[in-house]
């Protein structure tokens, strides 16, 4: 019976969570651990999926038992790779972190400072979680101090050690690199690991980080409009600048904490160490590194919930119209960085001057542009950006020229002269990489994590082995990749091709509204709340609401159906009957106490569970609007957003005692469209919940939504509730 009870509770909780979570919670064996590329022999199995297969009654695996019983973790022994690269590169495959790469650079000159490079590559980027989270978490890791514990921010720690910290967020990757005096590498690694898995973030500090990040972006858009727009497109995809500001502004603490728990974890990481002057035996460094990382490797892992967004590389032309002559930024894919692709890159444009692009431009445009060249993105979503000023009348021609030059690489393989120049410069690039720990880590992490099979390479001999057919084959493949062009400034010609998209170069307005300044924003919110009251009924009807009785049928994407009858009396009395899988569960909550019964089984709810149920029942839009009409709830206006294909006003409940709750109201119809809030799920931690409402029907003079679709975090909308009846109870 106990097992059955557990399954029922698990299923109920899972109704609002994703399939991954459900499977994990219910012991379903479909759970698949993320790909964990290995180098050499496979590490000893310890993944949760294998633990789930442990026979009942078997001795549980050794290790740390998590408080929420999600899974236990046993750090395994490392598997050592054979050293390569002149016995100076040593790779140790560990299940968590994925791998530690150790390099003991030979002394090159006593004139060069002995600086160690400690790098942690995390598989977490813009395509994971909600937009803005990857950057905010990275900023928080760098800048958050813990005053109570006397711990300075990571950036300050590295500076005090005499080093510098660099954090780079890409589409799928975040790299955290500290270059410190060689003697301080261990301290730097310990500090990095500590901040990566633990952060004393507060609401106020997060708000200040959001403010900094948004202001930084606004400043970049002003100072380097074309390049920053290209960067935005590469990272965030085709959206507006305004949407980026809103995305960052709309993130909250539970989302940030959860993102960090999910993605900043050992199994998502590769650690690289370059420690000049260390003992020749690399295991010395490995043991010290392992000791520094113990707390992180023992950290309980948050289940992966929600699907990551597919990365869509930029394609086509985006013209942001504005004052002055246009500045263009041509975005050319440059990964994977294999030896043939390095040569082809040189053939296309010799680092911004000449090449096929320069030659064709000289013919088609009558002059040869000189580009400023930048590289955007990281790992296998890298792009070269060629930036220059160009008269508006020539932009269309330039775009055609750039594409023709790009396609010509496939149609007409590089000539002998082009190959010779390309080969020489590609060789120079590889030679330069030998001196830089950064590019070396990039290469080894990619190889270890199998993002770019075969590259990028430091192997100079690979260039000598290339044949013309090899390069021609790569060229044909390469030339199929799409290009993109950002144009900032000037006006798009009326006869521009239909593939040209028009936008505005205007910088989005942004003014941070401090939490305490609610007066103006509260008045603004009233405008939309009154609109909602009018759309749903009359003020007097809402003033008379004292609760509701709802009968609903919940159905998840796998077809599991649950019937629920909920009687909710404002503010803290709830009775619910749930029928699922042939069983019936009764729940009763009164304030912070509650109990649940299923057949003969009786269970007392914790205060947190009771409050969660009340919180869930009270976030129906009818309840929220009634609270406003009765003067018990206050909202502040956040801004307007485009959501669900509509323009909506985003309002936030003014309430410091509960997690943030936001409601959107359609600015045209006045109908509440969604309610977003966060809650704490046992075993998961904080999750972001979003309910979308529609199918409004009139019940005793008040229009109530009879259909709701719910989502958790980034999970696509999948849990559907259809109300069979919704009866208003008088006060």
């Amino acid at each position: 019976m106990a097992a059955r009870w557990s399954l029922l509770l698990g299923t109920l909780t899972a109704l609002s969570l994703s399939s991954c979570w459900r499977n994990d919670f219910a012991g379903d064996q479909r759970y698949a651990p993320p790909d964990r590329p290995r180098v050499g022999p496979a590490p000893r199995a310890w993944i949760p999926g294998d633990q789930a297969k442990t026979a009942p009654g078997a001795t549980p695996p050794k290790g740390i038992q998590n408080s929420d019983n999600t899974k236990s973790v046993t750090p395994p022994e490392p598997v050592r790779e054979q050293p390569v690269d002149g016995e100076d590169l040593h790779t140790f495959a560990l299940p968590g972190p994925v791998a530690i790469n150790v390099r003991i650079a030979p002394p090159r000159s006593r004139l060069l400072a002995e600086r160690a490079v400690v790098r942690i590559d995390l598989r977490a980027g813009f395509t994971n979680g909600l937009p803005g989270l990857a950057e905010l978490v990275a900023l928080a890791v760098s800048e958050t101090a813990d005053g109570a514990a006397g711990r300075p921010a990571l950036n300050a720690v590295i500076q005090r050690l005499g080093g510098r910290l660099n954090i780079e967020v890409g589409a799928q990757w975040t790299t955290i690199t500290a270059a410190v005096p060689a003697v301080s590498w261990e301290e730097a690694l310990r500090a990095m690991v500590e901040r990566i898995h633990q952060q004393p973030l507060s609401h106020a500090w997060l708000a200040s980080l959001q403010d900094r990040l948004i202001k930084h972006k606004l400043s970049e858009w002003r100072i380097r409009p074309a390049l920053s727009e290209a960067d935005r497109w590469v990272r965030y995809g085709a959206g507006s600048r305004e949407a980026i500001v809103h995305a960052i502004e709309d993130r909250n603490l539970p989302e940030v904490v959860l993102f960090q728990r999910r993605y900043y974890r050992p199994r998502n990481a590769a650690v690289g160490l370059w420690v000049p002057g260390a003992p020749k035996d690399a295991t010395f460094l490995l043991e010290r590194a392992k000791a520094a990382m113990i707390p992180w490797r023992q950290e309980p892992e948050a289940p992966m919930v929600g699907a990551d967004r597919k990365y869509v590389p930029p394609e086509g032309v985006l013209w942001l119209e504005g004052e002055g002559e246009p500045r263009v930024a041509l975005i050319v894919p440059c990964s994977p960085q294999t030896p043939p692709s390095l040569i082809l890159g040189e053939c296309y444009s010799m680092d911004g001057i000449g090449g096929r692009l320069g030659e064709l431009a000289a013919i088609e445009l009558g002059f040869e542009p000189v580009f400023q060249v930048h590289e955007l993105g990281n790992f296998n979503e890298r792009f070269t950006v060629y930036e220059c000023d160009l008269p508006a009348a020539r932009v269309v021609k330039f775009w055609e020229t750039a594409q023709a030059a790009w396609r010509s690489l496939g149609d007409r393989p590089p000539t002998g002269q082009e190959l010779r120049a390309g080969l020489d410069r590609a060789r120079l690039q590889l030679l330069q990489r030998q001196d830089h720990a950064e590019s070396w880590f990039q290469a080894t992490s990619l190889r270890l994590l199998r993002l770019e099979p075969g590259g990028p390479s430091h192997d100079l001999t690979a260039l000598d082995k290339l044949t013309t057919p090899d390069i021609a084959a790569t060229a044909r493949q390469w030339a199929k990749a799409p290009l993109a062009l950002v144009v900032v400034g000037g006006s798009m010609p009326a006869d521009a091709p239909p593939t040209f998209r028009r936008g505005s170069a205007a910088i989005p307005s942004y003014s941070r509204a401090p939490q305490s300044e609610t007066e103006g924003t509260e008045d603004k919110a009233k405008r939309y709340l009154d609109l909602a009251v009018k759309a749903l009924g009359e003020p007097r009807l809402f003033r008379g609401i004292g609760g509701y009785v709802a009968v609903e049928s919940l159905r998840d994407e796998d077809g599991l159906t649950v019937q629920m009858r909920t009687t909710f009396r404002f503010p803290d009395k709830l009775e619910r009957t749930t029928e699922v899988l042939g069983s019936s569960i009764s729940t009763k909550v009164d304030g912070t106490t509650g109990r649940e019964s299923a057949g003969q089984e009786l269970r007392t709810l914790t205060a947190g569970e009771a409050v969660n149920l009340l919180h869930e029942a009270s976030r129906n839009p009818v309840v929220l609007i009634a609270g406003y009409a009765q003067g018990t709830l206050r909202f502040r206006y956040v801004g307007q957003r485009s959501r669900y294909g509509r323009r909506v006003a985003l309002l936030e409940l003014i309430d410091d005692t509960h997690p943030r709750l936001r409601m959107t109201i359609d600015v045209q119809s006045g109908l509440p469209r969604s309610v977003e809030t966060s809650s704490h799920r046992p075993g998961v931690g904080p999750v972001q919940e979003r309910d979308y409402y529609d199918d409004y029907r009139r019940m005793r003079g008040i229009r109530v939504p009879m259909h709701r679709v719910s989502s958790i975090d980034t999970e696509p909308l999948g849990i559907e509730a259809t109300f069979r009846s919704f009866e208003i109870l008088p006060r």
Partner: protein
Amino acid sequence: MIRRRPEVWARWLATPVVVLTAGGVDAQESKFFRTHDGSSFLLVKVDSRVVHWINLQPARIADQPEGLPGLAVAVGRASLSGGATERAGEGPPLRWEKALRRAPSTGAEFVEAHGYLGVAVTFPNGSIPLVAELLRVRTQRAELAGIEPFATEAIRARRERLLRTPHLGMLRRLLGSIKGGEAFLPGLTSATDKVTQARALELYRNTYSTNRALNVITGGFDIQATEEVLRRIYSVASRAAEPQSESTPVAPRVRAPEPAAPPDRSDTLLLACPLPTQRDPVTLATIDLLVEYLAGDADGFLPDRLRAAGHPRVEVAIRAPFPEPGGYLVVEVTDPGSKLDSSSKLVTALAGALDDVAKGPADAIRLSRAATAARAARTQFLHDPRGLAVLLAHQWARSGSVPSGDLAIEARVTPVAFQALASEVLATATRTLILPELR
């Protein structure tokens, strides 16, 4: 946030001098020599398979016509573009740059350093003769093609950079107050004088003579063989080096009205103290240490003292040297939301804090941390041979002397030397206070 304010019109001014980790550059690893045409070379051998060459030419503000403050940058960029006869179409000619890239090399990266402009190039060992020839040709042009667009762009960029400078109005008043007369920030004028080939060539010939060039080359080459190659290529001054006194300014011209600065912030004050004019490495390192001690990122003395004195949100930034090497140490103090005037407690607290530093002795722990931070700033780029080349070039440009001999500068900055400099720089009598003017 506490920060050290970088100078906006000379990006590299705030970059500290290089400190090599141990000892100096010795004969096995480096060599300084002059070729027959007057060019100065510092070769440093390191374990690398590529060569990094920094070539600098003087470009001080005093070298440039007053009405065309961006002309040196324009001349520098035009010098990379080849002669007018190579011009094709309307864009700048690119034959020289293409030849450099095909050497092969990374191409010329434009650099600015302490009143010098130049290029940084990276290439394999085998390309030394070709790159050397191309860099020599760059200083021997008969004309400078496409100078006008370069000048327009350089002046525009300079003005934009300056107009983004925080507290611009107060900085102008500070200079006016110190130097007397009209407050004027070099470079912040409209381009009143037309850029002509003749004026560009005049500046080019004055500053691009080989005997005024600094060359730092690092890489895995054979020093003796490389020296022979360079002596051969730089053997004849094809254009007679025109010995110019470094202090000879171009004749001043009529200035255009300066654009209006944004209104002062009511919560910010500036305080300037004159820096010593010596440019020896130890003095420069001591100045860096003082800046770090006063307002370092993590443990600045001034923000700590001012916060303890009842200004919990105060921010302190320091510009040094301002506006040029040998200028002033400028402390910017912001107490967000306040309205500052001469009777403000913050003014008194700041004066008291500076008096204490001037009087000494310095807090030993804080001084040690400041030394660590200063050392870290100096060595932060020294993990690769290119960083070494850049920093040696900067040290050369900043101090005016070849970076050789004992380069372990920190070891020579004793607490006594620090205190002596702090007492000299922060002496009460030499301070200039600028308060916000509220409109």
